[in-house]
């Protein structure tokens, strides 16, 4: 069964100059136990999509969707209280800068205990606080922190960024969520810790069947740890499908450029040679081009590109481009 099924998600911002469409009809679906990557540059709306799923966008943003199903239940139409209950039970999210999203005035133990819901503690009420502490220690062990004693007594500023992020993950998995959304979990971390964290997320995915939605702008790290991939550009979904298939044969010029700009995917590239790059930069929200938003930067844009392309499907591979790249044309 599909865990999350979103069709034509549109997120708009009401400004004095009129309605700005930051996310334009994005489809996203997640099976149970799947890891999906969501790739896009900054300003492509990937964090907005994540926040819309968790329902934490503020009131200025207008969210509409044809379908927004969480385990077969449309959560956009639910009353607020019920919506919070469903999301709070099943979805957890970790944020970009862990040291900033933890409470600086409380010790880790306090914050971690707060994240453990009551119904997971089995025992009489007078043992509750003891059980809660045991559970907090257990969570730290699960995320690979052995020295729980000193970490639990510390405040966030005393710990390194990597340890903070592990604590965030511990808090997120405290309620055994069905889906974990990780919004750029590794940007603030060093490369050795990054690999550790990705392995940690992958192990939870395999051991507990927890689905993971991994959001990042680094294609190379995401490609290694996910099964399927969605690529966003400027609020539009440009390509979605199996990760391996997309890396091997991208259909959309943007995905193609993204893959070619990473030296790692180009084994034949000589050191110190220029990398492939699209001209220009991502347009600002106030001046979005009409039609396909890649249009002005696209190397093979033509007259038809002023119309927004529809999402085409080739087996399990979705793309939205009038002139998809195929194997013969590219070589």
């Amino acid at each position: 069964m599909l865990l999350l099924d979103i069709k034509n998600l549109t997120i708009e911002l009401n400004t004095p100059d009129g309605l700005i469409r930051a996310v334009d009809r994005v489809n996203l679906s997640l099976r149970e136990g799947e890891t999906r990557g969501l790739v896009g540059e900054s300003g492509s709306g990937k964090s907005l999509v994540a926040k819309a799923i968790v329902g934490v966008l503020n009131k200025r943003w207008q969210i509409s969707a044809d379908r927004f199903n969480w385990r077969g239940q449309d959560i956009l139409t639910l009353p607020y209280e019920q919506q919070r209950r469903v999301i709070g039970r099943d979805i957890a999210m970790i944020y970009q800068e862990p040291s900033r999203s933890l409470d600086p005035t409380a010790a880790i133990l306090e914050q971690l205990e707060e994240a453990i819901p009551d119904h997971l503690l089995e025992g009489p009420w007078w043992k509750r606080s003891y059980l809660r502490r045991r559970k907090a220690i257990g969570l730290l062990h699960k995320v690979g922190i052995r020295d729980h004693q000193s970490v639990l007594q510390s405040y966030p500023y005393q710990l390194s960024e990597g340890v903070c992020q592990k604590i965030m993950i511990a808090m997120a998995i405290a309620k055994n969520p069905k889906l974990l959304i990780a919004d750029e979990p590794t940007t603030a971390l060093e490369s050795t810790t990054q690999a550790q964290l990705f392995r940690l997320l992958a192990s939870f995915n395999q051991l507990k069947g927890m689905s993971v939605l991994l959001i990042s702008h680094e294609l190379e790290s995401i490609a290694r740890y996910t099964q399927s991939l969605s690529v966003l550009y400027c609020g539009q979904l440009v390509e979605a499908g199996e990760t391996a298939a997309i890396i091997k044969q991208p259909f959309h010029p943007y995905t193609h450029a993204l893959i070619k700009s990473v030296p790692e995917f180009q084994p034949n590239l000589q050191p110190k040679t220029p990398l492939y790059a699209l001209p220009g930069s991502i347009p600002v929200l106030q001046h979005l081009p009409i039609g396909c938003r890649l249009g002005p930067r696209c190397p093979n844009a033509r007259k038809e590109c002023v119309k927004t392309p529809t999402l085409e499907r080739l087996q399990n591979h979705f793309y939205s481009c009038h002139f998809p790249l195929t194997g013969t044309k590219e070589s």
Partner: protein
Amino acid sequence: MSMLLDVRHLSKSYRKSAGWFRYRHVHALDNISFSLQQGKTLAIVGETGSGKSTLAKLLVGIEKPDHGHILLDGTEVQLRHYRQYNHMVRFIFQDASKSLNPQQKIGQMLDDVLRFNTRMDSQQRMHKIHQTLKQLGLLNEHSDYYPHMFSGGQLQRVALARALILDPKLLILDEALTALDPSLRAQIVNLLLELQQKTGLAYLLITNHLRLVKHIADDLLVLHQGKALDYGNTAHVFKHAEHDYSRKLINSAIA
């Protein structure tokens, strides 16, 4: 070919108080030596606390080394000759949007750099500014812009313009490429490589991004807790790293 930058046995330690009258010495850098030729790129990698930033500070003269020498073009650098070697070594910070003054136009900012460091008259300064902007793919009109009017990639170009306007020989990039998006990063990398080929600029790249290092750096220095572990040709270090730590670092990036 002569060495542009030659660093010999550089050490730096900080004093930290431990109790009322006692002090503890923290060795930020311990006996570091390396050299850099003109037109080459040296990458310095290491985790936080490995002394990367201290090294950068010593090289640009913000701090004074305890021991060791820094030789620039064969002459030893002294702090009081700051104004002289300021022309040769320029520094680019991590976040371009935070390192530019939001209340100052780009042209004004570049003009200040020239006014404080050279003896050009206003005509020459104007000419130089236009020339530099053009070199970096910006327009003349951009000198009337404020920093917030630029996009991320353009801001990085502006930061580069500020560094390059004095025609330096060495550019120190402190994590300057890490925060950029992949397609923008590719653009800036291309720009840097092009400048290096045209003008023989040398780069000192302080970064965490090993995949990029593999592509653009000639030499690699691995720092760990203030000590230099591996130093040599990038391809060589990537293949045969001597220390466990550097091997772990490299494996985590390319495995």
